[in-house]
């Protein structure tokens, strides 16, 4: 609750709205004791006095009545009616919603049918119909406005109630023999009240507007009594000659409704968990780069080379160091595997290369990614876009969420080409068919008109691969492309990738958590843990004799290479949280070989020939490996 108030207070606009609203409400409450002229005393000799006249601060209306006094009394009335309508609508709507949601079944069905019917009306029309039946008058207008808002509350509250009605504590209360009424009052109601309050805060502005509207039409408050709407309605005939009589009540409605809306928005934002987590911020076209140091120059070791890459996530005032200095490279025709548990930073590394880490919250804080000797990370967006999909392309994990759901796969393939060079309709289609054939999709001419949801998982992933191939790239970065697939389809997809690599000389970076896949496809492999490479070398060497205790444990978890469940969860303990990395070896807490020295300082990646290990006490070479 205090956190909520603090959050609300931080939202200055909401605070301003709240202050204005409180002032208006206090003023309205104080009206009877303020030294105001009688709002209903007419004085035709003094009609249409302009504002700031002696004795009439805001002037007078067409009957010579004091506008300031009428304004304040009218405000009082409008607020009272608006709040009363909101409370009535919320109470009745919530009652209906709770009954429907709690009892379910046929009760629910009948009630919600009725609610849907009411919602089928354009709702001002419904209010008019009700006023037509009851006759004009402020109280009838109140009933009408409350009534048309009941369905909105009923539907919202029913949804919440259905969720609660099946919770354990409600079942427990039922087993304890409590009556339905007791359960509703003691278990359900306390849980839905916050929702009711939020729904009220977002609708009360509307209700004030609507009652003012009905009064404006002459269907609400009747003379001489006046709320803000009827003041405006009466002033309309003198709009051109004496506009101040219209402006005064109109501006007051605006002030009231606007302050309520500001406050309501603030309440809603303060309660929205997505805003807190930053899940509603728009990711930039390319990851933000904020490098403190100039990155090391390219070594020329490969076509694509990552040097000292550091990527962080800045969420509020916490910093998650997802990638903490990664070096790797891949040559033409080579496949480099990167393996690690989820959260090890392997995907973030891959996405950082082309600036595809969502930003905010992602920031690349150091290092470089050299493609053909040129740094991509500092590159201007135009150049980055030119390379994306043309020279370096990606294959993502879940093709159902990574393909656009509303475009045909053929069109998505053609677009991948069009992003880099113009191509006509027929040529584009032919090329799309050819791409689908290259990834061995049967009947490609028919399949290009499919939508992604019409394909199987394996077919979709082939489309993903075809899309990556659209512009004959030099490098493909595959981020767990087979994880969502079953084993046989997985094997087919891997074969396709392997063939492409051999026939086209592709360089592939293959991210996975599966040693079986690595064994099948990769020439070299890097093992990542807590944002760093902990071991790197030829696949055959590492598979035969892992040196890092983490790698060894990973492999021990694999019952048999290439078969069965090969998930990595079987290591006791959890990887360290990357906003709170230990000083020394990040694996120390889970390592069986740990010594005091391991925790003292950062551990360098030691390289011997083709094999590099980040460990003070590496696993000794196994017997059959040592000569």
């Amino acid at each position, binding site marked *: 609750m205090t956190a909520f108030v603090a959050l609300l207070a931080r939202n200055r606009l909401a605070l301003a709205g709240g202050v204005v609203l409180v002032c208006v409400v206090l003023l309205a409450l104080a009206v009877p004791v303020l030294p105001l002229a009688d709002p209903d005393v007419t004085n035709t000799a003094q009609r249409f006095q302009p504002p700031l006249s002696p004795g009439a601060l805001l002037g007078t209306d067409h009957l010579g009545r004091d506008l300031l006094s009428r304004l304040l009394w009218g405000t009082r009335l409008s607020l009272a009616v608006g709040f009363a309508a909101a409370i009535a609508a919320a109470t009745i709507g919530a009652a209906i919603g709770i009954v429907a949601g709690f009892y379910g079944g046929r009760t629910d069905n009948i009630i919600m049918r009725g609610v849907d019917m009411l919602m089928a009306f*354009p709702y*001002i029309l419904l209010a008019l*119909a009700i006023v037509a*039946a009851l006759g004009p008058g402020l109280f009838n207008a109140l009933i009408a406005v409350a009534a048309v808002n009941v369905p909105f509350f009923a539907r919202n509250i029913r949804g919440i109630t259905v969720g609660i009605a099946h919770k354990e504590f409600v079942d427990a209360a039922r087993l304890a023999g409590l009556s339905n009424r007791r359960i509703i009052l003691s278990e359900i109601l306390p849980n839905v009240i916050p929702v009711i309050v939020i729904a009220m805060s977002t609708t009360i502005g509307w209700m004030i507007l609507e009652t003012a509207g009905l009064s404006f039409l002459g269907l609400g408050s009747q003379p001489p009594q006046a709320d803000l709407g009827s003041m*405006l309605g009466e002033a309309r005939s003198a709009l051109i000659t004496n506009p101040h009589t219209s402006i005064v009540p109109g501006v007051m409605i605006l002030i009231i409704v606007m302050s309520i809306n500001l406050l309501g928005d603030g309440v809603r934002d303060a309660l929205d968990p997505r805003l807190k987590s930053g899940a*509603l911020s728009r990711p930039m076209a390319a990851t933000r780069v904020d490098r403190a140091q100039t990155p090391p120059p390219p070594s020329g070791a490969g076509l694509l080379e990552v040097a000292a890459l550091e990527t962080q996530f800045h969420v509020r005032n916490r910093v998650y160091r997802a990638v903490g200095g990664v070096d790797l490279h891949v040559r033409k025709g080579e496949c480099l595997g990167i393996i690690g548990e989820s959260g090890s930073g392997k995907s973030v590394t891959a996405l950082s290369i082309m600036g595809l880490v969502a930003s905010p919250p992602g920031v690349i804080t150091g290092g470089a990614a050299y493609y053909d000797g040129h740094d991509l990370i500092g590159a201007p967006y135009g150049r980055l876009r030119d390379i994306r999909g043309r020279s370096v392309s990606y294959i993502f994990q879940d093709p159902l969420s990574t393909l656009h759901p509303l475009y045909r796969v053929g069109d998505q393939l053609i677009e991948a080409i069009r992003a880099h060079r113009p191509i006509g309709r027929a040529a584009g289609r032919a090329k799309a068919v050819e791409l689908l054939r290259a990834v061995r999709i049967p009947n490609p001419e028919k399949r290009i008109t499919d939508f992604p949801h019409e394909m199987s998982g394996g077919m979709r992933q082939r489309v993903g691969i075809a899309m990556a191939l659209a512009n004959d790239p030099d490098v493909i970065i595959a981020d767990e492309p087979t994880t969502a697939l079953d084993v046989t389809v997985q094997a087919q997809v891997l074969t396709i990738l392997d063939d492409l690599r051999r026939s086209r000389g592709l360089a592939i970076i293959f991210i996975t958590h599966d040693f079986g896949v690595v064994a099948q496809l990769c020439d070299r492999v890097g093992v990542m843990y807590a944002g760093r490479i902990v071991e790197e070398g030829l696949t055959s060497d590492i598979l035969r004799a892992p040196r890092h205790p983490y790698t060894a444990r990973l492999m021990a978890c694999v019952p048999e290479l290439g078969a069965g469940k090969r998930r990595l969860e079987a290591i006791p303990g959890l990887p360290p949280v990357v906003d709170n990395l230990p000083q020394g070896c990040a694996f120390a807490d889970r390592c069986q070989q740990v010594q005091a020295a391991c925790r003292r300082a950062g551990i360098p990646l030691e390289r011997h020939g083709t094999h590099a290990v980040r460990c003070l006490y590496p696993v000794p070479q196994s017997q059959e490996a040592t000569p």
Partner: protein
Amino acid sequence: MTGYILKRLLSAVPVLIGITVIVFLIMALIPGDPATAILGSYATPENVAKLNRDLGLDKPLVQQYFIWLGNMLQGDFGTSFALNRPVLDEVLERFGATLVLAGTAFVLCAVLGVAAGVVSAANQYGLADKAITFAVLLGISIPSFFLGMMMILLFAVNLRWFPVSGMWPIYGARSLSVLLTHLAMPAFALAVVATGVVARLSRSAMLEVLRQDFIRTARAKGVSERGVIWRHALKAAMVAIIPVLGIQAGFVLSGAVYIEMVFQWPGVGRMLVDAILKRDILLVQGGVVLVAACYVLFNIAVDVAQSLLDPRIKT
């Protein structure tokens, strides 16, 4: 697709029936002797007797309803006693003017609202976003009738850009350009609130979509940022925006009543208000039923548009 449209039309039948039931029940709320109340101050004893006979007010409620419904299905909505002409004729004549006004306002709110929401989301927390957010807040907080009055004051009286009110000049030719000058202010005033609501929803729908994986895919393909926003993100966001457009259509259709009063627009809304004040109940009934039915049909069009956009909807 035709099958889907037919299916939706069929499913609208119970809704339409429901609407007539609700209108009938509301009218049954009328206190006192219904015939006298319906006929109001224009009632003559013969009229009261005729109405009692026509509506079968001596019969049970259910039977009354079916008599009323049967008459309506034959195009007999009764006679307006204040105007002394058939309700249907009057309503249809007025409805055209309302459709012109509300239709224009709807197009305005859809185009401007979606565009504003997209621009706002694309520049989140930037200057354009802040300006739009503020304009939207103002738009949804200002009563449309007050806005209309201020527009008359500024654009018609002071600047003389547009005529003060009405749909056609009293004298002179009726051409499209004349209509447009008369339409500009009321359509805009009517569209403002709906535009604000659409812009708000579009912004949040876009922000949600921009986080999705397929947007990252588009970027990885090298699609330009403009293509990512307007082709990829907007198309997906429309799935969430279209239903709100449907709701806003109902809002402009019925909110037109305020604007018709302010701008003296000869539409159904103004007719309803007059009828309510004169207690011309049959005219109110007929007007409400016809407008509501029209809105139900429009919502079917919305559903069809949605199914054309989203192939995952089973048609």
